[in-house]
């Protein structure tokens, strides 16, 4: 019952955000950056401007729709980079062992010792703000858990008969890792990846809020909140809607991740019941 609740609500929210980003031009005829009109500045929500307007007279509803594109791009791309890095390091470390395993383990421990937001800020301090640095900064700093899980799954899988059989058949190391080991750890990796996407969306919003991510005038939910902070007394709606958008999309990813974990891990389900 609860498992289905998590999956359904999480899937619904995630789908909503993806559709909003994909169909933004059809859902609003305005431009998120160019359609600024100072005559319409700081208008409260009404039938023309559903979420009100900001200090430059831009429609907040339109900007929230286009903001979904930035959040999703950052969330999905950075998490894909993390997953690939984590899988490559984790599987190879568990498979080969020896000095390579020690090195990967050491690196993972160092990564876990630095809060990932701080690490991302360090990378952005060098590369400067913007979408590419954001993808690099968030894509390189959050792979440690994926790596750990991939490593421990590999350790428990590599002694099993079917992997030994593949070896006897003369499969190469890379082929064994990709065709024999990888498919058998996809469950937990998928869960970590989904939860990580929520985390990346939050980090993007926080970094853009600090002026280190997407810079104005482009409509990132985080940078919209920076603008909204200045006029919160006059136009509180400018703060409410972008924040709500962040909250609902992160909640979507988190519920989806929780739901997937409960579905894929029967042990957890028994404990719950």
């Amino acid at each position, binding site marked *: 019952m609860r498992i289905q609740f998590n999956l359904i609500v999480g899937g619904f929210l995630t789908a909503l955000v993806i559709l909003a980003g994909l169909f933004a031009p059809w859902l609003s005829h305005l431009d998120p950056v160019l359609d600024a009109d100072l005559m319409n500045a700081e208008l409260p929500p009404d039938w023309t401007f559903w979420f009100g307007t900001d200090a430059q007279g831009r429609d907040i509803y339109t900007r929230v729709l286009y903001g979904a594109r930035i959040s999703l791009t950052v969330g999905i791309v950075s998490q894909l980079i993390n997953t690939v890095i984590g899988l490559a390091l984790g599987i190879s470390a568990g498979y080969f062992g020896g000095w390579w395993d020690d090195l990967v383990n*050491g690196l993972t*421990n*160092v990564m876990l*010792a*630095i*809060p*990932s*937001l*701080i690490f991302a*800020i*360090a*990378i*952005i*301090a*060098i590369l400067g703000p913007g979408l590419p640095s954001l993808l690099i900064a968030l894509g390189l700093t959050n792979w440690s858990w994926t790596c750990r899980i991939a490593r421990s799954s590999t350790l428990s899988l590599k002694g099993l008969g079917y992997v030994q059989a593949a070896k006897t058949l003369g499969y190469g190391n890379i082929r064994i890792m990709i065709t024999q080991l990888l498919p058998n750890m996809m469950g937990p990796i998928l869960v970590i990846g989904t939860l990580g996407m*929520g985390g990346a969306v*939050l980090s993007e*919003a*926080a970094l853009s*809020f*600090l*002026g*280190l991510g997407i810079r104005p005038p482009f409509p990132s939910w*985080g940078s919209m*909140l920076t603008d*909204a*902070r200045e006029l*919160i*007394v006059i136009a*509180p709606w400018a*703060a*409410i809607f*972008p*924040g709500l958008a*962040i*909250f609902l999309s*992160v*909640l979507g990813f*988190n*519920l989806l991740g*929780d739901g997937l974990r409960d579905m894929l891990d029967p042990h957890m389900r028994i*404990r719950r019941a």
Partner: protein
Amino acid sequence: MLRFIIRRILQAIPTVIAVALLIFVIFSVVPGSFTSSLIADGRSGSDPMLVERLNKEFGLDKSLPERFTAYVYDLARFDLGTSFRTREPVTDVIGARLWPSLKLAMAAMVFAVAFGVPLGFLAALKPGSILDTVTMIGAVSGLSLPQFWLGLLLMYLFALQLGWLPSFGYGDGGLRYLILPAITLGLTPLALLARTTRAGVLEVMNADFIRTAYSKGMSSGRVVRWHVTRNALVLIVTTIGLQFGSLMGQAVVIEKLFSWPGLGSLLVDSVALRDIPVVQGSILVIVLWFLLINTIVDVVYAAIDPRIKQD
């Protein structure tokens, strides 16, 4: 016990060295990052004379191995270099920010523990009850909430509309200024603590020794006090410790939002000013803090759980 503590501290040293090395690599080996980024803010253009003078002043004209040796030597004497902007020693700049940051983190953690642990406990004692459902929905929402947005809304409501509390700043360092930032920062650890406490207590409740305790006629109050609390405590203490450490990451955004003069706002301001020595120093101090807390957690962990062998 003392030997365990000493060994645990010695174990953290390689990580500290690796982190210091990583920070040096990020900020120094990337070509031209130091001086060019200092000048790249457009105010001074790229005057070759200026580049040379600055390089000399900060010792950047030396070779990488020489610079690394100097960096390590300075670190060993707790010297973090000189600020590009104010020409003050970085240790002084950071030192002035440590107490406000520590105060905020501790207040946030007290708030999170005071509400998160009892909520998780009560939820676990009656799984499936209304309190349990509400707590768990609240917890997953709390984990998904952008903290700085919550802070902004709290600021709007309690400072700007109701006028009960100051909206931002450190003021005279009094409690009134601490309340809003601490609640904002404490919400995520609160949600996480409620979740882990509930999971920990539920796990212990199903264990064999609890059934044994009941079957030998122990009252449920005593079972909870004597067995459940002690065993769930290990998980709770670990979560508290880890959250305390990662709070420093989250604090960056909250300190900036509330103009709180801590380490986090120093870091963000220094990134904007391209004051690399201060950026390097604050990151190193934040990581050291994180490692220190982890070490303390491990020691506490061993002290409350005799099953963890100390050798």
